[in-house]
């Protein structure tokens, strides 16, 4: 029974999602659903918190990093549910399905985070991806939304197929899919020169790059982000990244340590490409959602530094970054969501004149994304760079730092539009006071965690 005890929170969440799906036939009140879903998520989180164990021959375990990662994902999901209560574009008739899909994707991510085995990682990733494909095209009448879902689906399935292929090759070379045992078998020199194994690892890296939009595997990102419903874009930009970076980070760091040099080189190249490309592409965007999409690409590039470092310190720096990233990105997307035509750059012209508080909040998020103190974005970058310099990657940090300057251009552009231009189009805030309060509290969190970071760095 031990086995079920450890995955009980996930099983409970699956039960919740089925319950919501079925009760959607009878209840039509969005609020009731949302409260149910949030309760389910919270219980899962608390439950998960009380567990520290591993099962299936250590192929699924829960440690403190997992618990923290799970909480990040759960809180993101709760936030997304809270702001999407307002979203009239999602029809009430299918709101139950919407929540069900969010819950199942959370289940997938929780499985990914806890996995210490490639097969479980794969299962989690598929559960996550299938839910996301549908969520992206949830604005059914919107052409862009359908395109977003389709593009994500086509690219995503290819990526998971490659992962399956890679797992098979790694299994062929080492006789196991377990992170720990792969690491053990690597001490045999044979595996290091085995082309089967190397191709397998490259396949895993490719899938990871696809899913977390590392350049040059990022092509789906801007279209999908732009087309997807804004709450889902916020979700897509934050939660899966948390799961992906933690799960794959564990694989790279946990399994490949004996042969860390080669995969590290590949990741270094990918990281530089992602930082440089993401920031340069973001510069020329006229659509705010697309800009934020490319900016999130570049943030993954920074976070790769933590994996490249290849230590527990790097992994915890990634975790800090993920928390910071989630807060500021959810906030920024929240503001985009609150404005009518929020993804149009010109909507922000003169926003400070019409909605000074909203503009102030958005400004805080932009400065945080650019990594200027006293915001949480600065602390996150700082910790990541600290880990990287400690491991001797000073030149890589210099690249990252130069790219940070580049990123200031496009983040400041929004601040500039809000404060230094005259309003030329009618901007309208289309959301409840509740959403406003939610976004406001995120902006306060950005400053508080930025000035007193010891609250969340341990």
């Amino acid at each position: 029974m031990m086995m079920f005890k450890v995955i009980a929170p996930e099983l409970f969440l699956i039960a919740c999602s089925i319950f919501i799906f079925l009760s959607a036939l009878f209840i039509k009140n969005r609020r009731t659903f949302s409260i149910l879903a949030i309760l389910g998520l919270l219980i899962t989180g608390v439950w998960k918190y009380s567990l520290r164990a591993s099962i299936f021959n250590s192929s699924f375990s829960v440690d403190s990093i997992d618990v923290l990662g799970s909480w990040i994902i759960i809180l993101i999901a709760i936030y997304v549910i809270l702001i999407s209560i307002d979203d009239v574009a999602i029809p009430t008739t299918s709101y139950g399905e919407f929540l069900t899909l969010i819950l199942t994707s959370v289940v997938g991510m929780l499985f990914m985070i806890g996995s210490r085995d490639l097969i479980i990682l794969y299962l989690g990733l598929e559960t996550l991806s299938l839910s996301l494909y549908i969520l992206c095209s949830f604005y059914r009448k919107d052409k862009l939304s359908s395109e977003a879902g389709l593009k994500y689906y086509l690219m995503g399935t290819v990526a998971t197929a490659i992962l399956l292929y890679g797992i098979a090759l790694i299994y062929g070379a080492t006789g196991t899919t377990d992170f720990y045992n792969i690491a053990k078998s690597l001490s045999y020199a044979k595996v290091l020169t085995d082309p089967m194994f190397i191709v397998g690892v490259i396949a895993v890296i490719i899938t990871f790059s696809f899913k977390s939009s590392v350049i040059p595997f990022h092509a789906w990102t801007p279209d999908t982000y732009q087309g997807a419903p804004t709450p889902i874009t916020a979700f897509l930009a934050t939660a899966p990244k948390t799961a992906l970076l933690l799960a794959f980070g564990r694989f790279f760091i946990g399994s490949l340590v004996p042969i860390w040099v080669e995969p590290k080189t590949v990741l270094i190249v990918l990281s530089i490409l992602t930082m440089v490309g993401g920031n340069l592409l973001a510069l020329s965007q006229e659509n705010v959602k697309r800009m934020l999409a490319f900016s999130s690409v570049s943030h993954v590039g920074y976070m790769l530094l933590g994996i490249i470092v290849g230590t527990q310190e790097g992994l915890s720096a990634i975790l800090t970054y993920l928390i910071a990233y989630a807060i500021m990105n959810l906030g920024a997307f929240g503001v985009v969501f609150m404005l009518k035509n929020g993804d149009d750059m010109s909507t922000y012209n003169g926003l400070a004149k019409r909605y000074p508080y909203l503009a102030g909040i958005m400004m805080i998020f932009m400065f945080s994304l650019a990594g200027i103190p006293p915001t949480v974005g600065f602390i996150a970058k700082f910790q990541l760079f600290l880990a990287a310099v400690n491991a001797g990657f000073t030149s890589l940090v210099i690249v990252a730092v130069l790219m940070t300057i580049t990123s200031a251009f496009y983040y400041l552009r929004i601040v500039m539009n809000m404060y230094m231009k005259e309003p030329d189009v009618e901007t309208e805030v289309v959301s409840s006071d509740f959403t406003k309060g939610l976004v406001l509290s995120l902006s306060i969190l950005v400053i508080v965690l930025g000035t007193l970071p010891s609250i969340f760095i341990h």
Partner: protein
Amino acid sequence: MNFPILSLILLIPVIGAILILFMKNPTLIKSTAMLVALIDFFISLPLWFLFDKNSHAMQFVEVYPWIPFINAKYAVGVDGISVLFVLLSTLITVISVSVSWKAIDKKVKEFFIMILLMETSMIGVFVSLDLLLFYAFWEAMLIPMFLLIGVWGGPNRVYASIKFVLFTFAGSVLMLVSILVLYFTGGHTFDILELMKLNLPLNMQIFLFIAFTLAFAVKVPMFPLHTWLPDAHTEAPTAGSVILAGVLLKLGAYGFLRFSMPFFPEATMMFLSLLQVLSVVAIVYGAFVTLKQTDLKRLIAYSSVSHMGFVTLGLFTLTQIGMLGGILQMINHGIVTGALFCLVGMIYERTHTRQIADYGGLKPTLPIFILFYTFFTLAAIGLPGTNSFMGEFLILCGAFLRFIPLGAFAVLGIILGTTYMIWLYYRVAYGNLNEKIKDLIYDLGPREILTLVPLLLLVLYIGFQPGVFTSYMQSSVSHLIATKFSSSMIAHTTLPLVGWLR
């Protein structure tokens, strides 16, 4: 446990800013900002009286854990160099609030919030004893200044504000990498006093020196990194210009004194002649460009490049007399140029033109204005009896001591400086009153006079009693020279360029 005076000075403007956030009435906002600025100024005054001048140690120190995980602390304190700048910052903030009283009519609330946040971050830079804390304040300053220029500035404000941010941001992020490197070589500490004791290998010193110095050189700004300054100065609102000239530019020079020199003494020696030459180039080039300006604010902005050249020249002579002059001149420049920007701002409020050609003949019409204007022009020229005279004199002494041609070129700057200031004075004060502005101008009111009087008194006080001010810095400066730059080290280092000139 001492009274946490420095934390209080840092905290009061933030509290003021938060209070203002909830206010609606513009007059109430302005009065609150003024009150907060005044309280902060008066709380900073005890620093002046209680400071022990005979000690080079940090005083009023407070240390609390900040991010224990990486051993970063909230550590603040002042020595003889920084204590004067804290006072200057609180004074300049009062002046800035006063000078914005009527000039700011849109987004009043945001404006005064920004001024107060600016005050905290400026003072934070001067009092930080922890590198990470220092960097946080250093970068945080960008946000209010960016908005001050970009929102309340002149017609080209957006361009100027972006240029300002990108120049300074680009300059300082490399410093972040260096801070990280220092952290690991220094044994996982950000403690500035601990790190000062390190003896770094020369290769590392060179890399770190370049990164740090670049950040500071942009802020000063040194030639050829000065191009953001005229734009920022010209476009900024009066208060912004006053803060820029009064405090912000000093941060770079302060950084040289606090970090570049004590942390990397050998690298400093290596680059010394380059930095000296760049300082002299800034003096002469800045002065020549100033001569050609047709815009009042731009003229004073370019003259700042020249004046700051004097400051860095003084510091990089590495002689006690030159360095004291350099520090004194920083304060002098803050006071005199701040006052000149105030004057320009006051006259601009009336006429809405900054073109020099639009003025003339103000002498008979605006007697009070001209009184102040004459006085501060003479101070800017460096007339004996005014503060700038003492600063320039000490700097030149240091320069001549170090290497005669340096001093000779710097004197050229003084001659040119006199030329452009007198010529400007002639064009503004004499001649016929311009028709364009005839009906617009009226003389200074009591608030404006009150704003300028403290600056005027300071000019005279420093001019006649410079010893009072230098006595504060003396032991800190001589300690720095004695511990880091022994005379044998200076004598034995062959400076390539100086050798070539000889």
